[in-house]
Every structure is written in C-alpha cells, then in structure tokens.
C-alpha cells in the first residue's frame, strides 16, 4: 500500500480509500457482505412496494382515481423509510426547472413557452399560441384537424369537445392496425396516448374528455385477448356510442326534465356564457309554454353569450344581454340563475367559464338561487380550493382585441370579412405590450365557484347539493364493481 501524502484538507473520497486500505482483508469482506445485504433488502422492499402499487392501480383502473393522465413521474420510491410523497401532476409544477426539462423530453409536441408569463400562475403551463405545422408521423390526421379546431376555439364546451373527440377516436380505432408481435390491448392504449398528448398540446383536456378517455382505456383493458381485432373494434365503437348516449344525450334529457319543474311563469332567469344543457332547458321550457325571460350575462374575451343569445332569439324567447359589469343593475330583477359547468369537484366547487363566480357572488348577495346543471361524468374526485390551483391560461393577445364580435365571426374564413377597426389611441397595441416590461396580461379561461355559493346542482341522478359529489362518485364506483 502506497503511502499517500495527505494535506490537512482531505476529500471524503480519499479518506474512505485510506480507511479501506487500512482495514484487513477480513474486515473488508465483512463490509462488502453488509453492503450487499442492505442492497438486497432495499430491492425486496422496492418490489413489495411495486406490487402493492400495481394492485392498487388495477383496483382503481376503471375508477376516477386520478384526473390527470399525464403524470410523468411515478410516486417516488426512494426508500422504505420515507413515505410516498404525492407530488402534484407535472402540469402544475412549471415553476420547477427540472420538471420543465423532464416534460420537454417526454412531450410528443414541442411548444414555445410564453414570452411574459404571469407570476401568479408561474406554476401552470403558459404557452404561446400553438404552431400549426406539427405534422407528426404518429398522429392521425383527423386528430390533427381536431386539435386545430380545439386550439382555434371552433369547438368549445365540455359536451361538444367530448363528442367530437369520441367521434374522431372511432375513426382512429377504425384506421388502426395492430403491429405484428403486439396485441391490440397493449399497443392501442399507447397509440391512443400519443394522440391524446397531441390533443393536450392543442388545448388542455376538459374534465368531460378526461372522463371519456378513462372509460375508453378501461374498456380496452378488459377486452378479451382472444378477440380478433375486428370484433374488438366493433365492441369499442359500441362502448363509445353508449358512453355518449348514456352520459350526455340521456343525461341531458333527465336534467332538462328536472330543471323544468323549477321554472314557472314570470321567471326572470340569468345565465352566464354558453352551456348546451342550459340552452336545452330554455328551449324545452319555451316549448312547454312557460312565460319567462332570460338575461344572458357575457364575459370577455370569448363572448360566448352572444352565441347563446342568437339561439334564444331564434327560438323566440325574450332576452336581455349584459356584460358582467352590469350585474349590479339587473340582479334585483332576477328570480333564479342557471348555469352549466365544466367540472364539479369533490369539495363541491364548480369549475366553469371565467365570470361564473362573479355571477354566483352577485346572486348570493341578492339572495337569488344559483342552479348548476352538470352531467355526472363531469364529476371529479379532485379537490380545488380556488382558481389558482389549476387553470387554463389563454392567449394574452385576445384581450387586446377590443371589437366585441362573437366567436363565430372570428373564425378563419376564406373570404376576408369587414372588421371594424377601432383606432383608439388608448388601445394597447400588440407590439406595445410586449415591449413594456412591467405590463402583463392575464387571460383566464376558467374559475372556481366555492360550494356555499351554489344552491343546488341538477344532474341526471337527481337534484343534489354540490357537496354531495363525493357520494355520487362513490356510488358510481360501487356500481361499476
């Protein structure tokens, strides 16, 4: 053993080296055995944990255990001593640079992060408007066109997006060919996962879409392995159709039927933005001959209320139109408020278009009942306390468009339409706001209405209070098993 001339400051490594060199052979062997034993123990415990994990995931495979399917990190299994740290999904940890790098590597689609992210929401993804030239080999063309429709807000609304997505999935499954050496069950899920990634990059999935995807994945996983591909595909088509029929079409009819019992002559009903169920309720009420009128409250920049207004006027219902600033003026005439929802959470909170919470608050102040119409497939077991935990941050440039045109007139069309150019000197131009360092623009899509502002929730199993979401989910889970 060579003598090492050690200075006063030795590194730990060299210290260790010297230590092992000083030990006798027997002692060294003992140390090795000890280390090997430790390693084996750790391995065993890890496999045990893995097994427990697998069992758990199998049990909850068809349930609503996790809203977020893009969980890129498995719960950490560092060692037996530290408990499993439940980390929030990757989408909600954008302020951690390591997480961001990790996501970028696994993403199907590369996106450009926004130039000036809003600090309050730095934990959420904020991307620039997606580029349209992403022709991936693995993404089906109808998925690409669907993604484009989502990102351009041609198809909006929980139910509409879900139905459109299911229709496209049927096409995708139809065109799908199992590669040799793999089975449909295993490979189709992966293939669909890539498609879903692409859709997510176009626009974040709605709760309704996530529910549909979960259902589809569970249906694929319980397919019998002997079933020939054609039969399997037929079965999947049937399941998808059933899903729409059961959860949207029939559910909506039930909801309309139950809400109608609460609408009487002389009612003044306020609604916010545009919900397909609420429109159905109004049309059914009008058909039944109930004399009521509707006040449509709208919010920028989407101005979806105008679309609802058009349809209501076409039906013949007397309407009033306001923006959310005028709520204080009209609320005293309103007898009830009926809105739709994007999702309902386990703590009874309602996630809906931004501005619904303002309506709920005003309704509460004026003691007007606030009714939410929501199908059960939009129920989620996640708990969201406020609008900051998770939200969809839209394109900031949208706010700078001061023309109050409704969505349908903003669609890209071949024929150039006349746009009224408001050349207001005070208007902020796009170039200006990007150059002004101190100016940020926030365009939130959703907001969360706390449960105590919601009077009741109408879903296809009946009228429930919004806090009963957990019970409903548990019931559904038991029914499935």
């Amino acid at each position, binding site marked *: 053993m060579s003598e090492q001339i050690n200075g006063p400051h030795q590194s730990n490594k060299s210290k260790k080296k010297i230590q092992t060199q000083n030990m006798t052979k027997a002692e060294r062997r003992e140390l090795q055995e000890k280390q090997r034993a430790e390693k084996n123990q750790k391995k065993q415990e890890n496999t045990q944990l893995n097994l427990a994990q697998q069992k758990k995931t199998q049990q909850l495979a068809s349930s609503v255990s996790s809203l977020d399917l893009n969980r890129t990190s498995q719960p950490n299994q560092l060692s037996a001593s530290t408990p499993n740290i439940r980390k929030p999904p990757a989408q909600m940890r954008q302020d951690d640079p390591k997480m961001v790098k990790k996501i970028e590597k696994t993403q199907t689609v590369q996106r450009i992060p926004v130039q000036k992210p809003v600090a309050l929401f730095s934990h959420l993804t904020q991307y620039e408007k997606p580029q349209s030239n992403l022709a991936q080999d693995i993404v089906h063309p109808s998925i690409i066109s669907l993604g484009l429709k989502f990102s351009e807000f041609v198809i909006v609304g929980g139910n509409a997006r879900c139905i459109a997505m299911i229709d496209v999935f049927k096409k995708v499954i139809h065109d799908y060919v199992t590669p040799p050496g793999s089975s449909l069950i295993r490979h189709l899920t992966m293939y669909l996962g890539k498609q879903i990634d692409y859709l997510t990059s176009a626009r974040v999935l709605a709760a309704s879409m996530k529910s549909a995807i979960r259902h589809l994945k569970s249906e694929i996983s319980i397919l019998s392995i002997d079933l020939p591909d054609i039969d399997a595909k037929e079965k999947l088509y049937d399941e998808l159709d059933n899903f729409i029929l059961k959860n949207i079409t029939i559910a909506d009819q039930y909801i309309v039927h139950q809400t109608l019992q609460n609408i009487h002559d002389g009612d003044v009903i306020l609604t916010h933005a545009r919900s397909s169920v609420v429109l159905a309720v109004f049309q059914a009420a009008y058909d039944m001959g109930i004399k009521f009128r509707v006040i449509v409250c709208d919010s920028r920049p989407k101005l979806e209320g105008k679309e609802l207004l058009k349809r209501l006027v076409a039906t013949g219902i007397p309407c009033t*139109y*306001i*923006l959310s600033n005028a709520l204080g003026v009209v609320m005293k005439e309103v007898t009830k408020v009926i809105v739709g929802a994007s999702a309902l959470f386990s703590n009874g909170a309602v996630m809906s278009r931004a501005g619904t919470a303002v309506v709920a608050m005003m309704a509460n102040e004026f003691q007007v009942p606030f009714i939410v119409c929501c199908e059960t497939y939009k129920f989620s077991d996640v708990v969201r306390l406020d*609008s900051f935990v998770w939200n969809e941050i839209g394109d900031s440039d949208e706010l700078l468009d001061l023309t109050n045109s409704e969505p349908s007139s903003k669609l890209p069309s071949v024929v150039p339409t006349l746009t009224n150019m408001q050349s207001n000197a005070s208007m902020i131009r796009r170039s200006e706001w990007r150059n002004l360092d101190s100016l940020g*623009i*926030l365009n939130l899509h959703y*907001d969360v209405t706390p449960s105590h502002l919601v009077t009741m929730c109408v879903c296809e199993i009946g009228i429930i209070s919004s806090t009963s979401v957990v019970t409903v989910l548990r019931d559904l889970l038991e029914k499935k098993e």
Partner: protein
Amino acid sequence: MSATNPKDVPLQVDILCDKLRRRQVFGSYNVAMETIKLIRTVVSNSKWSSATKIINTIKDTSKKLSAAQPIELAIKNITGRVLHLIRQEYELKYPNEHEYQGDPVLYRYLGGDKQSKLDQNCYNLKSNIIEGIKEIIDELESSSHNISSQALEHIHSNEIILTIGKSETVFTFLKEAARSRKFQVIVCETAPFFNGHEMAKLLAIEGIETTLITDSAIFAIMSRVNKVILGAHAVTGNGGLVAITGSQPVALAAKFTGTPVVVCAGLYKLSLKYPYDTDEFYMPMNPDSAINFENGDLIEKVDVVNPYFDFVSPDLVSLFITNV
C-alpha cells in the same frame, strides 16, 4: 363662428350647459373646474348689489347646469361651497345680523331668514368672494396631489393592489407610492369602455408591475389581492359611491374575501344627495359597445343594459382618502 364674449354671462352658461349635455365636459374633476370658473364669471360679470341677488343668480345657474347633466353631482357640490363661502364672507362683514343665535340653518328653514338680511351694501364683498373662489380652485387643483401625499401610509411593499377603470386620483396615488415602494397592481379592464386598458398602460410606463385582467376574473383573483383601491365619480350622502361600472362586483368580491376597499376621492366629489333610488345613477350608454350593429338582427329583438356607472353601497367601503 362668432367670437363668444367671455363677459356675456347667459351665453357662457348656455355654452357650458351644451358641453355638459354632449358630454364634452365629463368627469367630476373637469365638471367641477368648469363650474367654478363659470361661477367666477357670473360673480365678476353680472350686476348685483346685494348678496341675496348673487346667491339667487348662482342657484339658478347651478339648476340649469344640473338639469343639463344630472349625473354630475359635482355641480351642486361646488355651488354649495361657493354659497357657503358667500354667506361666510357676509357674516364676517356684518356679524350678528339676526337675533336668533342658534343654528342658522334651522332658523332659515323655519322661515326666519327668508327675506334675507343679506341686503347690506357690499363693496368689498365681490373681491372677497373672488378670492375665496380662487382658493377653491387651488384646492381643486391640488386635491389629487394632496391625496397622493398620503400614499405611503396605505401602500406597503410587495402588496398586490386591485383597481378598476381609469381614475386620475388613483393613478397619481399609485405613482407617488411607486417612487419609494415596490408593489404590484392588477387592473380590471372595465369592458365595454376599456378604461382599464389606459390605466394599465399608464402604470406600466411608470414602471409599476401591472397585470391586466378581464372583469370576469375578479372573483378568481381576489383571494391574492391585499387591497382594493377605487376611484369615485361621486360620493353620496350616505357614504355610497357612484363609481365606474364593475365597481360593485369588485367591492363585493373584496367583502367576500375580507379585503379592505379604499376609495380615493377629492372633497369636491362629496355630495349631499341621498341615494333613495340607486337606478338613477347608472347612466345607461348606447348598446353599441356591448352588441354592435353588425348583429343588427339581434339588436332589435334584445334589450341591452349597458350602464356607465355603478352604485357601491357604503358598507362595502373601508376607508375614504380625501385631500383634507
């Protein structure tokens, strides 16, 4: 166009009435300034020999102006100040004119002072009144400066402040605070008039960290806000505010989360008018900003409610900051 004679009092009154009606003069500060300048013209250029006469002339003028634009409560406020000034000056010259030593207002109300004893000849009264008016003008001009000098007491570092619309007073308030403290401002865009956009731009140019949000995000954002600072168009007799549309949802959301609401208003905005019917404050604007004529077929079948102002009830306001 014929040159308007500045000494022609009725003409000047009519000119200002027209401007008010057409909203060429708009906003409580502008209206207050124009009113007081007009009153100065009236005082200096009309013929009057006794205090009663000038008081009545001023009252008539103010009635005309108010009728032109009833929402401008500043007119009556300023008139009230001037009348009070005149009576004060008169008292100084001829003190103890009436036997009743108690409350002169009550005395006057009970009819004791109807044929007013303010008939004494007053040579210096005119110049005193003009001087007093000048003081009122100075106070008006410095009101926003005085308010902003209190900024540092109310805005602390790293606060997130919410404001709505564009108020000159609030802007100078925030600018003053930003000179020595770092804080963030969230501005609501106040659709469909978009005053918030102007405010956000101005604040950002001053270097204040600003975020522009839609009015629909008010409730969502409120949980992060430390303080709400509003400007006012007028303050009513019970302490309620007439402020830009959207202020009521903001104040309510603040009450919901327990956030303090601070209102910066110069004294000239304080009015005696009691809001029996809050509907008269809304000042509905043309529906074009909400639905424009591109949707012509919709407009004829639909009512559009598009107010310019909102009424905020007094229990929602925590603090008034004025220039006194």
